[in-house]
């Protein structure tokens, strides 16, 4: 058993129990962000760099930004629990005991003789170099073997964007009524943002393009590039939000085009062999196209989600 992982796991447990007993909103959200960071380290210790990067970008950074904007409304309130919360505590502990009893014969941590490591994972690990030819197994499964699921995942984010837009629109406002950004004249914010934008762009493009050879890909790079737009919105008021809506649909359309083109050529949906004669090159072209679509879509959806929520909160306070 990995002792470093046990130490971080216990730290995480203590932090989460403390979260459940906090009485102010802002410390609650910041402890949640700290919990996400510790979980990122745990993922790295469990050999999952892709998941760690996504958790750091989405869980520790973007979730905290959105929660903090909403939590700022309640910063003077006291968080209480039900009068009868003791009964629910007994119920939860009973449920936990039942789950632990059901998990008595779970395999030991790191056991390789379990069915999880035998059938489909063994197939993916043995056949990826021959079938697809890229070095990252996770990117091969995400973009090629299970590309259909990733299409659904991108659609979920765009659906969430439109759901938030429909929920927040009151009195049938037009989409152009949402202005992106505030007009503060802060010199510090503008200078720091202009300085750091170049580095964020280089990092985001690197993670996007190297998604098939190393941990990374469209989801992580889209979120990192969205942080530029969010930082810019603190001091400039220029972009119309409807462009982000168009851009997110455009990203999804790129993904679907990579699936429809093989159908028009006589193959099945999302079969990349149409793109080139050599099958490794064809897979790489297909994966590059869909990662591009995912990156554009996630970039615009994350930015637009942040703007919709913060604009609405500014209007109601």
């Amino acid at each position, binding site marked *: *058993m990995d002792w470093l*992982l046990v130490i971080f*796991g216990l730290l*995480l*447990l203590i932090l*989460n129990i403390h*979260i*459940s007993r906090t009485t102010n*909103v802002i410390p609650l*959200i910041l402890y*949640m962000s700290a*919990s996400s960071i510790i*979980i990122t380290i*745990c993922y790295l210790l*469990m050999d*999952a760099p892709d*998941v760690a990067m*996504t*958790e750091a970008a*989405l*869980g520790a950074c*973007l*979730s905290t930004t959105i*929660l903090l904007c*909403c939590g700022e*409304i309640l910063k003077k*309130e006291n968080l*209480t629990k*039900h009068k009868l919360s003791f009964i*629910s*505590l007994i119920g*939860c502990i009973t*449920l936990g005991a039942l789950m632990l009893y059901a*998990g008595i014969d*779970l*395999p030991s*941590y*790191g056991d*390789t003789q*379990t069915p*999880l490591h035998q059938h489909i994972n063994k197939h*993916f*690990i043995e056949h*990826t*170099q021959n079938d697809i030819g890229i*070095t*990252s*197994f996770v990117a091969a*499964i995400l973009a090629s073997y299970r590309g259909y699921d990733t299409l659904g*995942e991108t659609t*979920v*984010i765009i*659906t*969430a964007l439109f*759901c*938030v837009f429909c*929920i*927040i629109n009151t009195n049938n406002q037009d989409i152009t009524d949402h202005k992106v950004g505030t007009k503060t004249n802060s010199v510090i914010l503008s200078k720091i943002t202009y300085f750091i934008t170049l580095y964020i762009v280089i990092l985001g493009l690197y993670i996007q393009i190297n998604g098939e050879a190393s941990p990374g890909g469209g989801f992580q790079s889209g979120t990192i590039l969205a942080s530029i737009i969010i930082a810019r919105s603190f001091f400039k008021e220029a972009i119309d939000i409807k462009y982000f809506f168009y851009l997110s649909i455009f990203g999804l359309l790129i993904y679907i085009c990579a699936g429809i083109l093989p159908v028009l050529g006589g193959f099945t949906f999302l079969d990349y062999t149409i793109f080139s004669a050599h099958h490794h090159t064809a897979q790489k072209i297909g994966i590059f196209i869909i990662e591009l679509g995912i990156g554009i879509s*996630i970039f615009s959806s994350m930015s637009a989600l942040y703007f919709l*929520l913060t604009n609405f909160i500014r209007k109601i306070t």
Partner: protein
Amino acid sequence: MIGQTIYIIAVLICITGLYMVIACNNYISKIVGLGIFQNSILIFYIALGKATKGIPPIYADKVDIIYSAPTPHVLMLTAIVVGFATLATALAIAMRIYKRFGSLDISILDNS
């Protein structure tokens, strides 16, 4: 028992999140509790995929290499992104409730 410590920790974090969803009076606390609940499930799945003396699932051109299983990583990537989408939608609904009723506390909302 020692080899299953991480699973025990995941279950305990899970019931902490569930307790927050049930017992807290405030909607933001409930949403945060839902996030904690979801994080524990992700830890459990990723811990299942680890192989002893394994390396992250990126191809290395050496002999006798053991890789950690890549399929749980792919599924949990999707889960994190979908979890963020549900968080944003839940917050939008909570903000509409705040705008209409002026409070996010259940004990006040029940009486209005």
